[in-house]
């Protein structure tokens, strides 16, 4: 068997040497143009992460987003992961290529912006101690690793469109209180007393919440409320 060059503990470069990472996708080396090219050339899916805090001069993609999404070919699926801080109400209504609009989900993310196409090319923009670091890469391994991690976060995050809107603030607060009661497993009688309403009224509210969640049972209401991240944090016990 071939002798392996592994006498030292230092890492050895293995396989084909990595291609230069900043392989420019166009003659214009600017990140904005790179991002446009990535999106323009996508044939199947575009995955975008917006998680750099608002107002930082380092953010590139968010201000660019409308222009980026205009470049998406028809039938290309567009998914956007954002955080509570970077979420913008206009996001779900942006053009998503297939006419259905981009799918937007909320997740907890480290500060980063990225755009990926077809698991083949990626641009990432992250906050570093030494200012921002932006790179574009077509190297198979890092792009695929980024892509699978994106999918993993996506799968466990909340679709924004599924979260019902309860209208005015007073009602939203009542709904939150009721969900809190349900969350701690309070009986209807106890919950109604705590909220100073009749058991009947309480049950009517619960039925209304279930209807808006499109839940067929209280079990499913709990399932959906948790998936949609609508529940207050678990109350302290003891």
């Amino acid at each position, binding site marked *: *068997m071939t002798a*392996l060059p*592994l006498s030292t*503990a230092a*890492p*050895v470069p*293995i*396989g*084909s040497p*990595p291609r230069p*990472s900043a392989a420019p996708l166009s003659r214009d080396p600017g990140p904005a143009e790179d991002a446009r090219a990535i999106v323009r050339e996508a044939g199947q899916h575009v995955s975008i*992460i917006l998680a750099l805090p608002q107002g930082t001069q380092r953010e590139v993609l968010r201000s660019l987003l409308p222009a980026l999404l205009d470049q998406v070919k028809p039938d290309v699926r567009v998914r956007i992961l954002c955080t509570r801080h970077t979420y913008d109400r206009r996001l779900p209504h942006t053009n998503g290529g297939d006419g259905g609009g981009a799918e937007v989900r909320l*997740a*907890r*993310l*480290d500060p*980063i912006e*990225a755009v990926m196409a077809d698991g083949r090319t*990626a641009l*990432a923009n*992250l906050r*570093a101690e030494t200012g921002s*670091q*932006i*790179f574009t*890469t077509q190297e*198979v*391994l*890092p792009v*695929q*690793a*980024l892509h*699978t*991690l994106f*999918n*993993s*976060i*996506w*799968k*466990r*995050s*909340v679709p924004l469109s*599924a979260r019902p809107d309860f209208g005015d603030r007073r009602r939203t607060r009542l709904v939150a209180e009721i969900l809190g009661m*349900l*969350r*701690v*497993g309070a009986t209807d009688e106890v919950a109604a007393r705590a909220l100073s309403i009749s058991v009947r009224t309480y049950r009517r509210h619960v039925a209304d919440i279930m209807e808006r969640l499109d*839940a*067929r*049972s*209280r*079990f*499913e209401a*709990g*399932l*959906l*409320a*948790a*998936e*949609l991240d609508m529940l207050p944090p678990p109350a302290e016990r003891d």
Partner: protein
Amino acid sequence: MADPVTTDPLETGTRQAAAFQRLDTELLVAAATALADQATSSVNVTIPSDRRGLSEFGPALHAMAKTVRPDVEFRVLFPSRAFDGEVLRRLTTERANVAVRIAESPLQGVVMADFRSALLWSPIALKGGSVALFDKSAEIGALGSLFLGAWGSAIPLTEFLKRRELVRHEDQRQVLGHLRDGHTDRVAAQKMGISYRTYRRRVAEILEGLGAESRFQAGVRASELGLLSPLEDAQ
């Protein structure tokens, strides 16, 4: 030299592929060990999804578990489809403090030391050169950032095992389905061909297993454990 790797039976006529596999795995183990040895604060690993991936990546995982210093955080993210009780049992005997979480979607093989250097591996991405070592800070920064996101949304091993226990039997899964679909206990019992009392007992067992006092709470716990994912994509 003894074959340290392949447990999967190789198809006939793939001797060359077998040589490749061995070579890759040996290099992989050596490179992963060297990387793990450098780490001073954390080693973060994602396990590739396919069966062949685990059989080749497994030796590297075990080698790292023995190499990483005890005070260095060792996190392993497993895709659920590659879940392997035997590998995990070995892992926890090799090393006392190892954090394992389960992700629900496929992953690629990644090892990151201190989020400063990384090893990327895929059995299919490239031919003959499917391992790459990196010390480019920007790319590792991006990988690290997404790793932490995926880690944060993944299910801790203990929860995952609990959930497997809870849905081990077909009738447990059926009861969960009836609870979700809002069938009355009588209707559900009838559909399952069991008595009302037996059905109620099954529900009570599931609630107890989930640590829930009400059916709403049981739904919340089921979501946390990923037992039923109503919002999952078609993908």
